[in-house]
């Protein structure tokens, strides 16, 4: 699909530009030396392109509807990926490695390494093996190693549109697919585990089984996350209200932690990482509105309009400048 969009946009804009040039520019008289034809059109082109970049910036940096894991929500042994990035900045990892392909090319790409190693313990093992050697001549503390591991798990899970190319590899999902936050775990153990159980299976009769992914799906379809947050804050049936003890954000993080219990059932599932087709990513990302099919029509139209005008200006300059 992508090949078609790309080629058609290019071909059609060239065609429009040539037709416009033949019809409009050819008929006009030679421009006077002091006159600059298409001055308004040129200014408009620049303003339009600046406007486009400004409009899509919030989408590109995960403000609108995130397409990547968030650095504060990826954990390893209680440390977040955000803390790990700080360590990476302090040791200038990018000065030898590439990160998502950018950086120095002295050492392997970190996304590639994280995806090949895949399992957090393997990643940490790699870091531990290399730290202090001639290749990575700094003494990383245990804490720094844990932080960097969290950060590399986050790099592994970034939605990089299927880059880097790598031999396809089968990995087993041993961890929970959902985020585990230390704060949420503490709160859950304090307020919820007495009735719902530390593993979410439910101690008191009448409580739902948090390990059942079907229960979650039906509830989320019915009331959504905000509905579940309301239940926690204002209570339901025998369950007391927690609005005086928890903020809505905390309630939400506890719920997400509890949702993670259902992931226990997908442990052992196998997925394929890597491969050699970035075009699959267009299908996989269709779910977000700004990458949906409708949005693609807009991008395609924008591309055709802008590039045909640009090519027209190019022809014009070349022929009559």
């Amino acid at each position, binding site marked *: 699909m992508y090949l078609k969009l790309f080629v058609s946009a290019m071909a059609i804009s060239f065609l429009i530009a040539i037709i416009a040039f033949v019809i409009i520019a050819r008929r006009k008289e030679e421009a006077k030396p002091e006159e600059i034809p298409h001055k308004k059109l040129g200014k408009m082109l620049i303003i339009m392109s600046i406007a486009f970049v400004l409009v899509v910036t919030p989408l590109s940096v995960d403000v609108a509807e995130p397409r990547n894991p968030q650095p504060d929500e990826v954990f390893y042994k209680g440390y977040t990926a955000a803390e790990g990035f700080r360590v990476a900045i302090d040791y200038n990892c990018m000065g030898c490695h590439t990160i998502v392909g950018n950086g120095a090319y002295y050492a392997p790409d970190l996304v590639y390494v994280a995806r*090949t190693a895949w399992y957090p313990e393997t990643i940490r093992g790699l870091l531990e093996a290399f730290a202090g050697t001639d290749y990575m001549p700094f003494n990383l503390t245990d804490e720094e190693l844990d932080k960097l591991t969290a950060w590399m798990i986050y790099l592994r899970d970034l939605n990089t549109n299927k880059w880097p190319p790598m031999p396809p590899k089968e990995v087993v999902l041993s961890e929970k697919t959902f985020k585990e936050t230390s704060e949420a775990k503490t709160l859950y153990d304090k307020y919820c585990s007495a009735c719902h159980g530390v593993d979410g299976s439910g101690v008191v009769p009448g409580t739902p089984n948090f390990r059942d992914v079907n229960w979650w799906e039906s509830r989320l379809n019915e009331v959504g996350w905000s509905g579940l947050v309301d239940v926690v804050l204002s209570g339901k049936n025998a369950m007391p209200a927690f609005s005086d003890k928890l903020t809505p954000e905390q309630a939400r993080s506890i719920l997400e932690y509890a949702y993670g219990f259902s992931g226990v059932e997908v442990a052992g599932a196998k997925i394929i990482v890597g491969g050699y087709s970035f075009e699959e990513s267009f299908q996989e990302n269709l779910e977000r509105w700004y990458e949906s099919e409708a949005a693609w029509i807009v991008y395609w139209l924008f591309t055709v309009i802008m590039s045909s005008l640009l090519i027209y200006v190019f022809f014009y300059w070349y022929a009559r400048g």
Partner: protein
Amino acid sequence: MVYRTQKLATPLVVVAVLLFLVQLIFGGILALYYISPNILSGTLNFNLARAYHLNALLFWLFSATFAAVIYVLPVLSGREIAYPGILKIIVLLLLVVVVGGFLSLPLMQEGRNAWALGQPLLYEGKEYVELGRLWDAILVFAFILFALVVLKTLPPMKEWPLALWALVFGAAITFVLYIPGNIFFKHVPTSEYFRWWTVHYWVEGALEVAYAGAFGLLLMVLIPREEVKRVVDKYIFYDVVLAATSGILGQGHHYFWIGTPTFWIMIGGIFSALEILPLTLMAFEALRIAKKSNIKFENLPSMYFMVGILLFGLVGVALQGLVITWPWTNWWEHGTWVTMLHAHECMMAFSMGAISLILFAVPGLTGKPIDRTFTIWGKRAFYLMATGQIILATSFGLAGISQIFNYWIKGEPWSTVWSTRSLFMPGVVVGGAIVFLGYLYYASTIFRHLLFPVREEPYRVEKAPPTYMNTLRGLPLLIVLSIVFSLIGAAGIWSFFSEQVLVGRNPVVPYVTTAISFIGLAILLELMIIKFTRALEHQYYEI
């Protein structure tokens, strides 16, 4: 020299020449690392040497640009620069940032940084923008002061020619966009997204728009004829429109695989392919202007380097960019040494612009004439730097192709990738040595003029009959040929997707086609450089 305040450019010229030396030395150290990875490990780590390699480059470009502006400003506005006292402070602030920034970089070997308000203060491990917030703040303050001085000195905006608008806006945009790329964001896609605002728009804003403006102004100063002003005005306008539009949207080629949405693969892919339009047109336009104006240039070395920015801009920036910018080729080459081919030629175009400006300003600054030795050494500097850089960059490109096959497709361990890539290191080392030799000529030219009396005769061009090698004859054909070669290279990288490579593990097709393309482009670039510069010298402008 007519204006007293122009003299303030001299310290910046010296800083620029010395920092270039620093850049080359650290480049040499980086090459040593490929011979033995534990050569300086622990004392001067690879990432530290690389940080110096990049930052020395950026600082000498900054210094040279500042120097050029200080030199040209009084001429343009017909009066002394306002507030020379503030100008001295700006020069001092720049020096503080260079020294302070460089002294704090070694802290990265221990990972000892100071953080405040969520920002790293002393240094930051992001390539190209390694300065900490402390130094950034001083630098931005210096930029603001400088903008005030410039605006105060220039005549009212209504009287500006278009070229001046381009220069001022290009420079202003470059400085404003310095800010977002430097801020620390904890989210990697966000951090990379804004880092490219700084790094990519430096090239777009500074190289294409501001340099176009600067050289337009130079032409106007050199040839004070009304028709030249009109030609320049028109060329600046279309160049800025094409470069800004394709450049702003073509930015997307950095956003294919960094965690940003898929639509960038469409926008970036198409508009960055269109980025060759302004640069190709600039080359054709230069031919046209050369043919029309038919003038003799006093300062030949400066003009040589100007040709260098034009042709490195065409082949290194536009066409090597076209090889790797298609999503189907970028997918393979991203994160490999093929990018280094493009990057090193881009930065050479950048540097040649700055060197050209310095060589233009130095005789005026010292009040000494342009003599035989100045011209001959300057010319040698140009040929050596250009040739060396072409050899160096092409070696990187060829090595990168083997990296793609061995790493991405065969999934070999890094040590294998390393050793296959290292086969091409001799090319890099030889190229680097030639560039260094060129630098020696360049530095000697500058210091000879600054420090010693200059009493030689002016350079006299030897008479030679027009041949293929010293005229512009056939140059349009060479330009078209190089576009063809860059498309061959793109097809070569694209062929990594074929069954033969992915399943059959037979890399012959991509290896051969990309080698033809990269080496062909290198030869074409060298050929065009020789033809163009010699035509300029002999004034054989017929095409």
